[in-house]
Structures are given as C-alpha cells and as structure tokens.
C-alpha cells in the first residue's frame, strides 16, 4: 500500500519538477540568447507568465476532432516518456516505472507525440502546418538513424536494454559512457541537435518562413499545453541523455547541473547558426553523425 502511495506522489512530483525545470530552462535560453545579442532580455521566469497567460485566454478555434486531440497527444507522449526514465539514480520518489520500460520501448514511444501532432496539424488545413509537418517528419527520419545506432551501440556494450542497469553499471565501474564510448555519445549529441530544433535545425517552426509551422493554427490553451509538454519532453530527453552518457545523478542539484550544461550545447550552437533547408538538414545527419554511430557500434563490439 505504501509503495503505491509513494509511486503516485512520486509521479506527481516528477511531472511538476519536469514542468518547472523545463519551463525555467526555456526562460534561461531566452535570457542567454538575449545576452548574446547584447540585449537585457526577459526575466528568466518569463515563460511561466506566458503559459499562465495562454491558459487564461479564451480559445474558440474549431477545425475538427483531431485538432482538439493533438495537444493531448503531445502531452501524453511527453509524460509517458518521462515516467519510464529513472530521474535519479536511487531516488525514492523519482524512479516511477523505470524498471519496467527499457530503451527499445522509449525508442518506440518517443515519436508518438510528433505523430499525433502531425494528425492534428493536418486537420487544421493551414498550408504552413502541412509543410511544417512534412519537414518535421523528414527531419525525424534524419536524426533517428544516428540516435538509434548510438543506443544500439550502448545496448551491445552493456548487454542490457534497461536504462537503470546502464546507470548502475556506469556508477559501479566509475567510468561514464561518454569516456568508454565517445563515438556513440557524439552521434547521440548530433541527434540531439535535431531533437531540440534550435537553429540551424529549426526548419519545423521557422517563424519567418512557415509562421511557426504545425502550431500555426493553435492558440490560447492549446498552445499552453504544447509549450508545457515540450518543456516536459525536453527535460525527459535531457535526463535520458544524462542517464545514458553521464552516469545518472545522485541528487537533484547534480542532475540540474548536468542537464543544464548538456542543454546549452544545442542552444549555443544554434546562436551562431543560420537555418538549414530541409534536405541540408537531413544530409547533415546522414553524414558525420551516421559515420560516428557506425564507429561507435564497432567500438562497442570490439
């Protein structure tokens, strides 16, 4: 009985933590971008105001059933991914379902949100949404391949598919994955650039050319749900990366430091980059990241 109560409390706590941390990271990103552009920038908690305001808007857009479902799809997907990732190494509240799910399940469930979004955006009938969805799915084909290669290299090297096991092995041996298989890490890092969609890979949103792409017909509460779920998803992916390559985290402070450093890599890279075209983006992932993934795989087998 106590177990279940801990589980429920832990799940709620995890979602709240992911939401707060993800939104704060979004605000910090805006601050960093502003400082690089020699501006003062918004307050780092500005994104909380944005979400709160969007929630308080009256929304009356109706394009059909799927359009109303799409934000829920993304939210569900983000929370599901979060639930199957161990947040802390041996936390009482933060373990959730991580013992039951493994990397293959995560690989399977992660594209669920974008696909639901594609259905919803398709129903709005906005041409910008359709182009954005096409671009997003093409880009996913691009970065999934180095990502999967890198994860398979991991599974071969540790002979397990459980994230918890991988973290335990790293902690026991004292060697982080980033040192024992740097090529797999690099491939996964490049895949992360595509996942977070900062420049130069922001071809899906692309405010200047696509009017924010798939989200262009979503306003008010739907946009708030999409913002918060993307924050949760960002946090989940960061935690997954920290677990796989940086030996997990003992406590929240360690986790925050590791995730923030990792998160700043695509942000800072994006600050100095213009936007790619779609085919440039895909060929980018199919060149060096793919090669690094293959090398990582060979490294793991040897």
């Amino acid at each position, binding site marked *: 009985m106590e177990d279940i109560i801990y589980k429920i409390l832990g799940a709620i706590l995890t979602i709240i933590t992911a939401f707060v941390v993800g939104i704060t990271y979004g605000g910090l990103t*805006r601050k960093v971008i*502003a400082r690089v*552009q*020699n*501006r*003062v*920038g*918004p*307050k780092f908690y*500005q994104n909380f*105001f*944005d979400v*709160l*305001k*969007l929630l*308080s*808007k*009256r*929304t*009356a*857009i*109706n394009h059909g059933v799927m359009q109303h479902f799409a934000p829920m799809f993304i939210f569900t997907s983000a929370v599901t991914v979060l639930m199957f990732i161990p947040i802390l190494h041996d936390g009482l509240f933060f373990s959730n379902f991580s013992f039951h799910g493994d990397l293959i399940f995560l690989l399977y469930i992660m594209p669920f949100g974008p696909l639901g979004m594609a259905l919803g955006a398709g129903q709005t009938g906005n041409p*910008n949404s359709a182009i954005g969805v096409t671009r997003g799915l093409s880009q996913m084909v691009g970065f999934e391949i180095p990502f999967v290669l890198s994860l398979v290299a991991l599974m071969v090297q540790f002979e397990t598919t459980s994230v918890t096991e991988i973290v335990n092995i790293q902690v026991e041996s004292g060697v982080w994955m980033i040192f024992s298989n740097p090529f797999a890490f690099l491939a996964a890092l490049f895949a992360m650039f595509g996942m977070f969609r900062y420049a130069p890979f922001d071809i899906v949103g692309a*405010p200047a050319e*696509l*009017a*924010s792409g798939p*989200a*262009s*017909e*979503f*306003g*008010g509460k739907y*946009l708030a749900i999409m913002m918060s779920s993307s924050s949760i998803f960002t946090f989940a992916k960061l935690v997954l990366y920290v677990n796989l390559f940086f030996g997990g985290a003992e406590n929240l402070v360690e986790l925050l430091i590791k995730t923030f450093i990792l998160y700043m890599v695509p942000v800072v890279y994006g600050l100095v980059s213009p936007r790619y075209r779609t085919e440039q983006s895909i060929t980018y992932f199919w060149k060096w990241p793919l090669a690094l993934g293959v090398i990582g795989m060979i490294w793991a087998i040897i």
Partner: protein
Amino acid sequence: MNIVKDKKSQHIVDYIKEFARKNSLFVMAYGTGCGAIEIPPTMTSRYDAERFGIRGAATPRQADVLLITGYLAVKTLKRVIRVYEQMQDPKYIIAFGSCTINGGMYFDSYNTINALDRYVPVDVYINGCMPRPEAVIEGFVALQEKIQRGDADNGKKYQENIDWYRENQMKVIKNWNMPDYNW
C-alpha cells in the same frame, strides 16, 4: 468567465490573470504602413522590448496585440479585419501615428481610411509621425496599465457592437467576400 463562485476569490483570480496577461504580450508581426520600420529597433538590442515580456508571434491565433503601424489603405483594412477576427480573446490593438487617429497627412486621400476606431476597436493610440521606439514602448506600458485596471477587453466590445462595426466596414469595403470566423 467566472472560475469560482466567491466574489473575493474571483477578485484574486482576476488579479493573477491580468498580471499574467500584462506581463506577456505576443505581438502580431504584421506591418501595415510606414511605421513598421519602428518595430525592428523596438525589438532588437537598442530598445529591447522583450524586457517587458513583449515578443513576436507568427500567426494571429497565437497573438494578443495587433499593431496597426501607420496609414491603412482600404485594401489593407480588409486584411486587418481578417487578422483581428482570427485572434483569440482577449485581444488588443495599438494604433501608431497620426494616420490612424485622423488621417494624418493622408486625410484627403482617395484610398486611406481616416479614423481607425470606426472599423476595429483600438486600445491605445500612439501619436507622432512616426512615433519613436521610446514612444512605442510607452504605448505598450500604457496598454499594460490598462490591462491591469481590467478595462482592456475590447474583443468583447467588438462582438457586442458587431453590427455597428460591420456597417462601417461595409461602407468602405464594397465587395464584401470575407469568411465568418468562429471567435
């Protein structure tokens, strides 16, 4: 919309809502006249309007504020009305320059409207030809104060007086072939 029954609690809810609305204004990136050239300096590093939580929105569905930056030809007015009707409540309009107030230097032109608030409700007028970025920011601050006071809900006013606005709009737009939006 009342979330809670109790009047005092509703007051607190309203305060929080208006505080959030005030501090997060998404501006529709739609330049209508010559004043659109004042927006880039307002948004970029010299005057940096993002300090006040003002940022651009790409589509009318996501936007709160519509900037009418200067004179409006009848052809542009048609587009402005379409954009305004696609925006979600609560929505605000900030009108720039003399042209939107009384026609400015185009008061006798055959194709520009003279008083914007006959066609769409306007929250804040910024006078000048053109207003400088400082004036633009002051206009935004005036709008924020208006929102905090709670009397900036002009979307509702537009819906209530839609007949009057439609009559004025149809007077200048002769061939009315616009879709009806569900607000």
